[in-house]
């Protein structure tokens, strides 16, 4: 078997040579943008005085709502978000004006001269405040199956509670940025740090009042995104485009880390009320949950995120009677947005918390409760999709074997008996994660391939490379179809003028939809090259081949490896025969539909399953813990590249662990983030890795899996981080069974949970 390729940009990354947007020498005449941000969370604008800033030496322009040639609107799902607000300020840090100057420091100094007169309003900041006013983006959503009221009243046991999970800062290493360049007085070329080229193009065109084809959006690569550049990047790219359009000069925008952390949206905090019914064995008979999210000041992606939370409120559990309701609340915070998992983690956290409560109530092992309730083939999810490849139960068994769960439980018990201030705990979290955009029409992808006359290959797709190694996977797919070495394939930037109307690279679907599109395009080329190869082989070897093999840069008839011609020869011949050497591939995921009104349909192409067990050692006095071990079992289809997928799984796990433990978004009573810089907001560092980390990837044959039998990998493993939370909770409850631990489980939250009971 051929050795799998390294990261297609790996050498460039390791040498600091890879091109990131705006990490490049300034262009001649380029202007630098700095912003006047709203100092308050909610206010009526009385006047905005830009005159002093405009006359500051070195300032080229100061732009505000009055300067917009087209529509002052960047809302996409709903038309609710202006580029610059003209009447009401909706969140602290909202951009009110943009200064363009010949130097960053001049722009910064000029921003200080802008004067805003405003009438402050009381901001709404919490889910409770918004929910009490029924200030929701859409009326309450509902998914229901069975007879929930009756089932609850007939349940042998009932428990209820409220689950709170906090926000999360994306902390992509590369902050928001864009560089826009006017070309030919006709086109604005935006190098945009976005996951969504189509959206940036569409909205920029609308704001500028020009057709979309006059806006080219290009993304060479992103320095991390995690959902934070799916929608949040649009504002900055449109601003750069507007500046370049109006000044006919290049414009560069680079947010500082503090600006980015203070003023851009984050993972949605959720607050959820639940009630669960179950029998003596712990079988769930009824699950009633109300999920409420903090959506921030504009709708952004809040509806789809709420929907995904609702779709994951069952996690791996078969629920005969179920009601899942959801409300997306409007508040005066920067619009909360997509973040790896996209509501899934928030939904899963609620039912996993309830499972823990059932286990404690019945005095049973939480692993057992999870197993007996796990989906079986033929079960039906709350939204009506039939489960056909259920594997969570088996994966729980596997991870229990890998972690030696029974032995571990005994050793934890013995440890806890023999220590005064140290407590160990075990946490288990399984996952079933639905793959597809739940907005069905987004499940489409395009790719375009050129084979050049020397046999070299260039591939473009709508997907954005942001570290997930989509480009490596695309190269592998094309290489496999054409029998080439993947290193010889160039995967190009995402560019609207090559691949238009691209769906965002999101929802873990990047390699599925773009990989399939690339495969379709490559298959077309293979068909043409096959014809050319047959001509050559017929002439050269006087045989009439049928099935052709493409392998190691050669093409030969099946069974006749010596009667081969080179790939390059076939290309030249195809060109001479006037066959197309470019191909376009289009893919749309089959058989997806969902009726939002009824809450019914088949929103997912397939599911990804897995499970994790973590063991922690908690210091009851300091609230600090050591993560002693984590075992993960992850079902992966037929992985295109196990090393890439391993990197995704561990990276997502650590990110999920951060959300569950140390990453605490703190907002004050004025709607200002107190955790708006890296000295107050902590993401995991290298010392936070588990002391022992074991990952087993299970190769599975799935009828539903995607390109070459592979499965999506970006988001599902984020859920494994929750095993650390439940391990901590278990350690705390070994001291105080009634303790309620909030998420994130910071040292302070742990100390508070411990002392609340005693």
């Amino acid at each position: 078997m051929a050795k799998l390729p390294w990261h297609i940009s790996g050498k460039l990354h390791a040498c600091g040579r890879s091109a990131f947007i705006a990490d490049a020498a300034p262009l001649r005449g380029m202007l630098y943008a700095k912003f006047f941000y709203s100092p308050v969370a909610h206010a009526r604008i009385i006047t905005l005085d830009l005159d002093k800033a405009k006359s500051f030496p070195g300032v080229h322009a100061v732009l505000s709502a009055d300067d917009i040639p087209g529509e002052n609107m960047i809302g996409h799902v709903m038309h609710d978000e202006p580029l610059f607000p003209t009447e009401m300020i909706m969140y602290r840090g909202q951009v009110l004006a943009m200064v363009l100057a010949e130097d960053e420091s001049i722009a910064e100094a000029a921003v200080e001269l802008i004067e805003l007169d405003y009438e402050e309003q009381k901001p709404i900041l919490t889910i409770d405040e918004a929910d009490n006013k029924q200030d929701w983006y859409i009326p309450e959503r509902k998914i229901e199956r069975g007879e929930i009221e009756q089932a609850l009243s007939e349940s042998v046991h009932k428990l209820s509670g409220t689950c709170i999970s906090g926000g999360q800062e994306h902390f992509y290493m590369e902050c928001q940025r864009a560089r826009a360049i006017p070309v030919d007085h006709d086109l604005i070329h935006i190098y945009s740090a976005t996951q969504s080229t189509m959206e940036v193009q569409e909205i920029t065109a609308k704001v500028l009042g020009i057709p979309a084809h006059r806006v080219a959006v290009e993304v060479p690569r992103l320095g991390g995104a995690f959902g934070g550049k799916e929608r949040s990047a649009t504002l900055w790219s449109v601003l750069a485009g507007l500046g370049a359009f109006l000044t006919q000069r290049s414009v560069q925008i680079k947010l500082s880390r503090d600006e980015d952390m203070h003023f851009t949206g984050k993972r949605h905090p959720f607050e959820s009320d639940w009630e669960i019914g179950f029998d003596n064995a712990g079988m769930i008979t009824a699950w009633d949950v109300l999920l409420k999210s903090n959506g921030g000041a504009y709708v952004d992606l809040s509806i789809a995120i709420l929907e995904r939370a609702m779709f994951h409120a069952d996690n791996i559990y078969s629920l005969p009677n179920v009601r899942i309701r959801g409300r997306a609340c409007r508040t005066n915070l920067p619009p909360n947005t997509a973040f790896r998992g996209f509501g899934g983690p928030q939904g899963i956290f609620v039912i996993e918390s309830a499972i823990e409560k059932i286990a404690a109530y019945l005095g049973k092992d939480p692993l057992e409760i999870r197993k007996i309730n796990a989906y079986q083939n033929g079960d039906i999810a709350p939204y009506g999709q039939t489960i056909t490849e259920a594997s969570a139960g088996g994966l729980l068994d596997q991870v229990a074997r890998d972690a030696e769960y029974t032995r571990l439980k005994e050793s934890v018990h013995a440890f806890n008996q023999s220590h005064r201030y140290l407590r160990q705990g075990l946490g288990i979290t399984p996952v079933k994660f639905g793959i597809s955009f739940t907005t069905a029409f987004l499940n489409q992808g395009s790719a375009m391939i050129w084979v050049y006359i020397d046999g070299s290959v260039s591939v473009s797709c709508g997907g954005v490379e942001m570290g997930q190694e989509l480009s490596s996977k695309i190269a592998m797919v094309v290489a496999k179809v054409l029998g080439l070495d993947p290193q010889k394939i160039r995967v190009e930037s995402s560019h609207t003028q090559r691949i238009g109307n691209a769906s965002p690279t999101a929802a873990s679907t990047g390699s599925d939809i773009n990989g399939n599109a690339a495969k379709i395009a490559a298959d077309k080329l293979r068909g043409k090259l096959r014809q050319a190869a047959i001509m050559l082989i017929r002439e050269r070897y006087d045989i009439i081949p049928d099935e052709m093999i493409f392998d190691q840069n050669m093409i030969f008839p099946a069974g006749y490896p010596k009667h081969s011609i080179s790939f390059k020869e076939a290309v030249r011949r195809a060109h001479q025969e006037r066959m197309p050497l470019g191909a376009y591939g289009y893919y749309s995921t089959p058989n997806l539909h969902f009726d939002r009104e009824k809450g019914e349909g088949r929103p997912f192409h397939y599911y990804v399953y897995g499970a994790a067990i973590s063991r922690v050692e908690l210091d009851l006095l300091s609230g600090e813990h050591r993560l002693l071990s984590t075992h993960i079992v992850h079902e992966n289809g037929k992985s295109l590249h196990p090393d890439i997928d391993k990197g995704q799984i561990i990276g997502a796990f650590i990110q999920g662990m951060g959300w569950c433990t140390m990453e605490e978004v703190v907002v004050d009573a004025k709607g200002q983030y107190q955790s708006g810089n890296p000295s107050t907001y902590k993401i995991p560092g290298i010392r936070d890795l588990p002391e022992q980390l074991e990952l087993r990837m299970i190769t599975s044959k799935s009828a539903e899996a995607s390109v070459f039998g592979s499965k999506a990998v970006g988001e599902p493993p984020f859920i494994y981080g929750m095993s650390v939370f439940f391990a901590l909770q278990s350690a705390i409850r070994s001291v105080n069974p009634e303790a309620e631990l909030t998420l994130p489980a910071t040292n302070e939250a742990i100390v508070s949970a411990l002392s609340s009971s005693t």
Partner: protein
Amino acid sequence: MEKTLAASGSYRFNRISFFLNGEDIAVELPPGISTLDFLNKMMHMYGSKCSCNEGDCGACTVVVAQAREGAIVYEAINSCLYPAAKLHGKHLITIEGLGSPEALHPIQTAILEHHGTQCGYCTPGFVMSLFALLASIANPDKAAILAALEGNLCRCTGYQSILDAAMELSALCPRAEIMPAFCQAIEPKLFSFDRPAEDCKKTDTSLHLIRRYHKARSSEEISRLLAEHPDAGLIAGGTDIMVQKNIGRRSFERLIDLSDIHELAQIQMKRDGIHIGSAVTYSQIMDSGIIKCDLPYLVELCGLIASKQIRNFGTLVGNVANASPVGDSLPLLLVLEARLVLLSQAGQRELPITDFFLDYRKTALEAGEFIREIVIPIPPRDAYIKTMKSAKRKSVDIASVVSAIRIQKDDTALLAFGGVAATPALSKDFPGLYQSGSSAEAIAEQVAGEFRPLSDVRGSSDYRRQMIKNHIIKYLELQDGKASLAY
């Protein structure tokens, strides 16, 4: 935010010369420009990445080589906080110097082969941190690797692949392969370097927050400058002042850099204790044989401060002068009864550190005065001395509560806290309570009553009060090995 950028552009530039990736260069630097801005904005070298601009992420890590005590040391630093004027006479090694896609350095190969890069933005910083580590230590163990990499954040990989790469390099890659020829070629030039740093008046269209960056050559010169310009700021490492500039956008009329003054960069054992000069970095303290032997808890403490990159140019005296209520080293220095040697044109005086912190960020330093060195008397060997730091993350975090204890057979019993009052402070009640044999719980309860901690993003007042109690209980629990159960 105070208004900070003035419209007029007349500045004193620093004219310095140093080595950049093996090349001898001379540059004129705007005052106080960071090494990262120098690389990105003046040299248009973009391999060193700006991600946080405040020393918290390591994406901008570069390596500085310099002569120290007869050897050349290779140290990773955060280029965003390292004033470029400090580079005079040193060798700056950046990612651009280390390898190329056509000829990878062994560290780059290991990162590539272990899939230790995903989005790539943090990768150059990791490579440079590993380079400094492997250039300095043969076969570092996991603890040394974690210490070297704790200041580098990665949001993609979850670190495992990077750690695997580092462990393999440690086991298999000899130092000779780590050290590029151009580094070795520069080493003799670092020993013999004798060109002076200069400055020159310049106007600039760009606006700068710092108007003049003065590289002082002697303690006397500092005293003289401070007498002439009492408002001038002193900068040793700069790990705090540069954050104030980069993030707080604070302006400084004049900064005086004392880091190149040889006599201030010494650790010396004298009759009255160990003298640590104001230019001594945390890393120098951690490497010092004297301190490892006589003040091992100070080494342990320094390991809890910030990251390797910060420890390589941040200073202990800077931590004192900064007088933050949560300064990591301050409770320990209080219980060690350290003394400060203060110098001004009027002369020299000594002050117990217990008299130094007057109020929130207010100290007993008088106008024209600066801390020349800190003197730490050596406690008896059997003294029980320990520090604890409570923070959100295991490393590279600012404390919510930090404390230190010292108990001796001669009835000395001292306990100090940071993060629970406007200044770091000794507990008044602890000595009496301890000597009277009160229970740990009773001591904890009473000492907690002495302080009125505030609530902020790093912890509520309740949590901080609870931490006062828990630190005390833990100290006494760990000291008292007689308990029937293990801790």
